[in-house]
């Protein structure tokens, strides 16, 4: 079984024993849309925001008008893969890979994904010779991804190719072999590799979200009141494959990934008092970098994974501390009679942002990692849970009180301007950037209970990720 490798794509393992580039021998052409009238501009254009709500099957003149002169966006089709074996698993894998790949490619909005129900009648192709390029051209596709799934000794063999409809040739291809247990991962991997190859973009299809959840409905032991435990879970970026990480039947909240995706730090009440624990999710071991000293909350790994910033009341008042992962070199970063909380690192690790109420209300501040250079960023009625975007974006997202609840706002460090990307639908808290800075995960009550959603940095492309129980404090793996 290769399930161990398939189960944990965050590791960055290749899906399969063999992942072979099979682009056509001619120099791969960059696949770009050249049809201005067909394009849907990224800035103002209309796009399907969710695979369940595709745009109308036929594009209309209105759409074309709306796109204006913006950069023509490449139009891709992802028809069903062809199962070359008759067994159910292979057939299911072929279906799942096509669906998931469409969603993955659509998610980054780098391509315009033509809704799948508009080309059900165009036959899928098992090889380049049989790709019906004329039909795809009629549909207005610039590219089409075709693939096959075949039973193999170790599981399945999956071959995926991106064809240029105009050039009538393959411009990008990959072949994977491995377990059939999680066919979604083949789609995720191909999507990431295609984005990297075609757009030099780091896609998030293989990333994961960590969050805390009460979905297991267990009660805390030994309390008089009825209290529900919260455990740390992880799931694929699209919510699939949820897995429970902690099992200690207390509060386990505010998880944060290590940069290598092998560990999750979190606030745990396992000992009865809040402390920082690290679960090494592959090794099955735990660490306690704070050594049980005082009460410790809200850990976050530094970008190089060597240090952890956290909030602690060990000296009598909530302050920000930094400690090496092995527990050495504890540094107190703030020293103030007010409350300091919720640290986050800058992408370079040279600065931190955190929340302080020294002005009378909680606001987001930044400070150099040595404690110098304090600077107040926000002037909200209440701001918390800063999250610092990766390059090239120089932004800090946070939750701001905007009424009875919170909304997600983004502060641009260069311009000093703040924009808002959620607007009062329920409360919206705990933002966390995706590793490529294009998306945010956050908690929202807009669907009733507390659930994890993702949204793009421009406020579009909202997706609900969790549906089981209540779910809080998401954090996105690197």
């Amino acid at each position, binding site marked *: 079984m290769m399930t161990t490798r398939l189960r944990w794509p965050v590791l960055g393992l290749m899906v399969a024993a063999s992942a072979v580039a099979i682009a056509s021998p001619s120099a791969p052409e960059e696949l770009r849309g050249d049809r201005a009238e067909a394009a849907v501009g990224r800035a103002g254009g209309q796009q399907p925001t969710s695979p369940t709500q595709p745009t109308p099957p036929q594009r209309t003149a209105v759409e074309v008008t709306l796109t204006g002169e913006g950069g023509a966006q490449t139009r891709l089709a992802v028809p069903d893969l062809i199962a070359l074996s008759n067994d159910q698993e292979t057939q299911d894998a072929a279906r799942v890979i096509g669906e998931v790949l469409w969603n993955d490619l659509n998610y980054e909005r780098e391509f315009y994904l033509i809704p799948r129900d508009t080309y059900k009648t165009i036959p899928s192709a098992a090889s380049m010779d049989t790709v019906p390029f004329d039909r795809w051209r009629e549909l207005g596709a610039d590219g089409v991804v075709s693939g096959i799934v075949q039973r193999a000794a170790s599981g399945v063999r999956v071959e995926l190719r991106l064809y240029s409809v105009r050039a009538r040739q393959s411009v990008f291809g990959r072949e994977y072999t491995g377990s059939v247990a999680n066919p979604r991962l083949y789609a995720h991997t191909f999507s990431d590799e295609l984005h990297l190859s075609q757009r030099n973009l780091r896609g998030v299809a293989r990333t994961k979200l960590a969050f805390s959840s009460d979905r297991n409905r267990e009660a805390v032991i030994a309390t*008089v009141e009825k209290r529900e435990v919260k455990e740390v879970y992880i799931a694929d970026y699209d919510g699939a494959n949820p897995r429970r990480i902690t099992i200690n039947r207390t509060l386990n*909240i505010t998880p944060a990934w290590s940069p290598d995706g092998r560990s999750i730090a979190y606030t745990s009440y396992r000992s009865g008092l809040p402390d920082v624990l690290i679960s090494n999710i592959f090794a099955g071991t735990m660490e306690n970098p704070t050594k049980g000293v005082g009460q410790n909350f809200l850990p976050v790994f530094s970008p190089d994974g060597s240090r952890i910033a956290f909030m602690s009341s060990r000296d009598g008042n909530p302050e920000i501390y930094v400690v090496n992962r092995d527990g050495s070199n504890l540094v107190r970063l703030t020293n103030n009679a007010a*409350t300091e909380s*919720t640290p986050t690192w800058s992408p370079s690790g040279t600065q931190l942002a955190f929340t302080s109420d020294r002005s009378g209300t909680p606001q987001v501040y930044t400070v150099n990692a040595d404690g110098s250079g304090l600077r107040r960023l926000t002037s909200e009625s209440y701001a918390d849970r800063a999250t610092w975007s990766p390059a090239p974006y120089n932004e800090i997202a946070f939750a701001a009180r905007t009424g009875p609840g919170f909304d997600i706002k983004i502060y641009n460090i260069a311009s000093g301007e703040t924009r808002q990307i959620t607007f009062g639908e329920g409360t919206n808290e705990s933002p966390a950037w995706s590793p490529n800075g294009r998306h945010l995960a956050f908690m929202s009550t807009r669907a009733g209970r507390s659930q994890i959603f993702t949204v793009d940095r421009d406020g579009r492309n909202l997706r609900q990720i969790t549906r089981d129980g209540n779910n809080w404090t998401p954090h996105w793996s690197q």
Partner: protein
Amino acid sequence: MVLLLTMGGAACGSKAKPPVARPQPPASVADNSPPPKPPAPPQPIAEQPISVPPIPADELSGRSIDDLNRDSPLKPMFFALDSAEVSGEGQQILQANAAVLRKYPNMQVTIEGHCDERGTAEYNLALGERRAVAARNYLVSLGIAADRVKTVSYGKEFPFDAGHDDAAWANNRRAHFVITAK
């Protein structure tokens, strides 16, 4: 000591309990004799209001810690929105709780700091911490030994009232006392 016991009794008595005839405290409240048949304070809850002739010498002795916490002689104190300040009313509650702690010198407690849902989950961990510590500091200022009182912040993770209105929020902004030893 007598004064504080009396204050504690008065505070409890003002909680609209049936005015049971209160036994007179023995004139000689010993200074340091171990639990010296302390005066039975008014029963916090009218379990058997009348005709229980012999009030047990120690009302804690017959009850498990869980029982005590279900119907605790230590009352929660409440906070204003986004505040960790002990109000005047909060001081009275803490004085009454201090009296109970003085009366039962073996009693150990954990003060839980809780917040309502209107703050963020993250910042409320800090606010709950400050609430618990504020309550503890006040108890210590009243002479309660610091090592008898632990604190823990639960932020808004364990609301007492699942509602989403002012009454629920007020009920959830609290320093909650849990007896851990008696």
